């Protein structure tokens, strides 16, 4: 087996200082199926974007077929017979399948597009590689599995020998996944090489010849798939987490504040994203959700806070079902929300800091006075909050967009915490912000939990979930796979097995702890 791709000592530092790849060595042999695994943020997508010419490496060398290459854009990568199927499909919805396959390189006859030939070549490719599609169907009307096959055919039409598939199974049903695997095997039989990005270890075992594991921008190792167990891979992926230095007073769990019962959610395309999720939140306790991103955490928070409509279930707060109520209704019940995406749902970027601080309460007394706002009160209250939450700004009249990420997050935290919440739902509360602000926000979370707030914490940072939570629930493919009543007593290796769906607790085991 000779290597067809060698990436040597790849370093990628983004303009904002984030080190996505740190000295990665990655080798792919001709004709193999090579799985690339790692948690979100491990750097695998960046590495593949570099290989496909979308991003340029800060340092390092890429060798394709024995020759050192520099890719300025993905066109250069295509010239070197590398094709990529992105996670979000790059198709033109109103075009036919065949038009999408040949787009950019249409066969011509007398200056016009040869429409018969377009259908023919698509049919030929489809037959040759066992990727069944209907060439004259409109892309808008076909399902996700078929769309993916169109994407693969597109790369094959451009003579790709090396195919990069970015989390191809994330959007597929189990049956579609099996079809895809069959197609991948056919491709390899005909001499193609496939790089398969995933974090589903079951699939790694099933389809790949070798597997490379990445973590925190580094390559942990490449091994023959048959030589490792899923448990060993999970340990390589999750590894040792840095424990945070947080002093947490003893927990005094009190009454039940929110009862979540059998919540389900369907994506726009009808894929089940949450499957009958149930748990309770108690006063004085932080419940952490551990899971690899994309397993339903985002949707869970959006459903609980009224941003998305569920497909069934109940959420009981103070004896009332608040599921699918409006966000304001839910907030008026005392549910505060630190949203995952600060810029979209957390702040109004061009509004002032003051306005952002009162946006959940301006319509109520004492801020509302007749039809006007009591600006004097707004001014004093926001000054208090700016001081109390040490938001670094000359004054509260500035647009919130002028603040750094950490200070912007503090504005959100100040607003949500000062409403004296009955339940707080915190999603990625410290993502992408500086160390000082991170520490401050974590301490505040612990403080209001000790004061008696019920908190649901969702974070992609496993270290954060483990050190802040009192109780942990693992979520995998929209289902709860395990519950750990004493967060301090569970190891990250153990959690990893549940987060990656290798181990499950039975409903009976979980019942009394949820």
């Amino acid at each position, binding site marked *: 087996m000779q290597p067809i791709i060698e990436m040597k000592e790849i370093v990628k530092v983004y303009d904002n200082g984030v080190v996505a790849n740190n000295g990665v060595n990655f080798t792919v042999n001709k004709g193999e199926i090579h799985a690339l695994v790692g948690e979100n943020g491990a750097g695998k997508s960046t590495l593949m974007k570099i290989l496909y010419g979308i991003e340029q490496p800060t340092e390092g060398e890429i060798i394709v077929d024995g020759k050192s290459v520099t890719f300025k854009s*993905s*066109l250069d990568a*295509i010239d070197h017979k590398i094709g990529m199927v992105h996670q979000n499909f*790059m*198709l*033109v*919805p*109103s*075009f036919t399948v065949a*038009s999408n396959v040949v*787009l*950019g*390189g*249409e066969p*011509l006859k007398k*200056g*016009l*597009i040869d*429409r018969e030939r377009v259908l023919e070549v698509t049919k030929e490719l489809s037959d040759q590689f066992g990727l069944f599609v209907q060439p004259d169907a409109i892309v*808008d009307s076909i*399902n996700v599995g078929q769309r993916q096959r169109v994407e693969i055919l597109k790369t094959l039409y451009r003579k790709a020998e090396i195919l990069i598939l970015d989390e191809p199974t994330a959007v597929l*049903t*189990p*049956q579609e996944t099996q079809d895809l695997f069959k197609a991948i095997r056919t491709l390899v039989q005909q001499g193609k090489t496939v790089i398969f990005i995933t974090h589903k270890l079951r699939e790694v075992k099933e389809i790949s010849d070798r597997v490379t594991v990445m973590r925190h921008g580094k390559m942990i190792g490449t091994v023959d798939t048959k030589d490792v167990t899923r448990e060993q891979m999970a340990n390589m992926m999750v590894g040792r987490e840095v424990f945070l230095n947080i002093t947490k007073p003893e927990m005094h769990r009190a009454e039940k504040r929110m009862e979540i019962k059998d919540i389900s959610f*369907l994506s*726009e*395309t*009808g*894929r*089940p994203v949450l499957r009958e999720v149930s748990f309770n939140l108690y006063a004085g306790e932080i419940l952490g959700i551990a899971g690899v991103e994309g397993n339903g955490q985002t949707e869970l928070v959006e459903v609980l806070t009224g941003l998305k409509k569920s497909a069934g279930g109940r959420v009981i707060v103070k004896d009332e079902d608040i599921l699918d109520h409006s966000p304001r209704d839910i907030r008026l019940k005392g549910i505060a929300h630190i949203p995952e995406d600060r810029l979209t749902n957390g702040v109004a970027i061009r509004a002032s800091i003051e306005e952002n601080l009162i946006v959940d309460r301006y319509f109520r007394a004492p801020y509302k006075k007749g039809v006007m706002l009591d600006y004097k009160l707004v001014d004093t209250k926001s000054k208090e909050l700016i001081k109390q939450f040490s938001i670094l700004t000359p004054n509260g009249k500035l647009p919130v967009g002028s603040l750094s990420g950490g200070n912007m997050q503090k504005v959100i935290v100040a607003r949500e915490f000062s409403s004296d919440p009955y339940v707080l739902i915190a999603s990625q509360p410290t993502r992408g912000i500086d160390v000082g602000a991170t520490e401050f926000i974590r301490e505040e979370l612990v403080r209001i939990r000790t004061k008696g707030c019920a908190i649901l914490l969702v974070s992609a940072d496993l270290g954060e979930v483990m050190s802040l939570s009192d109780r942990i629930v693992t979520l995998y493919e929209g289902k709860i796979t395990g519950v750990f009543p004493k967060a301090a007593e569970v190891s990250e290796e153990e959690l990893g097995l549940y987060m990656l769906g290798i181990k499950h607790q039975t409903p009976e085991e979980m019942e009394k702890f949820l």
Partner: protein
Amino acid sequence: MSLETVIRGIFSSLFIASVIRISTPIIFPAMGGLVAQVAGVPNMALEGIMNVGAFTGVMVSAFTGSIWLAILAGIIAGVLLALLLGVFHLHFKSDLFIAGLAANLMASGGTVFLLYIITGDKGNSSTVRSLSVPNVNIPLIKDIPFVGEILSGHPVFTYLAFFSVFLVYIFLYRTRFGTHLRAVGENPEAATTLGINVVRTRMIALAISGIFAALGGMNLSMAYLQLFQKEMAAGRGWIGIAAIHLGARKPVGVMLASILFGFADAISNQLGSLNIPSQLVQMIPYATTVVALAVYAIQQRQAALERMKKYQKEHIDSLAAEHQG
């Protein structure tokens, strides 16, 4: 005049011919706007480009005495204004609507300003002698009763407008560049990954829309009338944009929508002879636009909802099938 005469008028060959004539200066900007729209850069300056085209055509014809030079100059002026819009939007990233608004105001102010400098008149160009494009009498067809009166004897621009529908269709659906243009409009990211230059494609689309809108303008000043008037397009560029949406962004659909607006306009001309307040009658084409667009929007939403439901159902069915199997 009685209602009866009006109704009889509507069913006359002259009336139908007038619908065709009135539709022409809507079809042109609508076809141009369509090309830009499907490329993802709605040309909001169609109205202004029509005014510029109308003005330039008249002036160049008056001073050179050449109808061909006049048409060429009108087209060039229209393309330049369209490209200016493109530079502001595509290179300087200004908002398309604001840039379009600026282009329209500039066109309406600029044409009047130049009109005054050249002719000393701020209202119209009647003091200079403008040429007009010839009318075409189609042999044989012109002698057929009724049909001949409808189809024959229109200015050459009218035939060109209807022929352009066919041209735009071939361009968008059968040529490589037209196909890329549609891809750029629908999914620029996908087009980019396939090596299609999005900015260049959109620039060219705007230039093409400039050609059509300028022809629409010249149809007013060199066929309809033989002079330029202040704000000559009188909203036809905007109605053209409405026609694009109502025609579901398909060449033939857009043509039919343009004819509908032409029909509404012709009706309002006919009713002008009745004892109804003229303001009310003149509202008809614009009211038609609003109603038609509302109906279309509702239909579209329904269709989108249906599609989503079908999608979810299919998926759930396939999951259920798996469950059983």
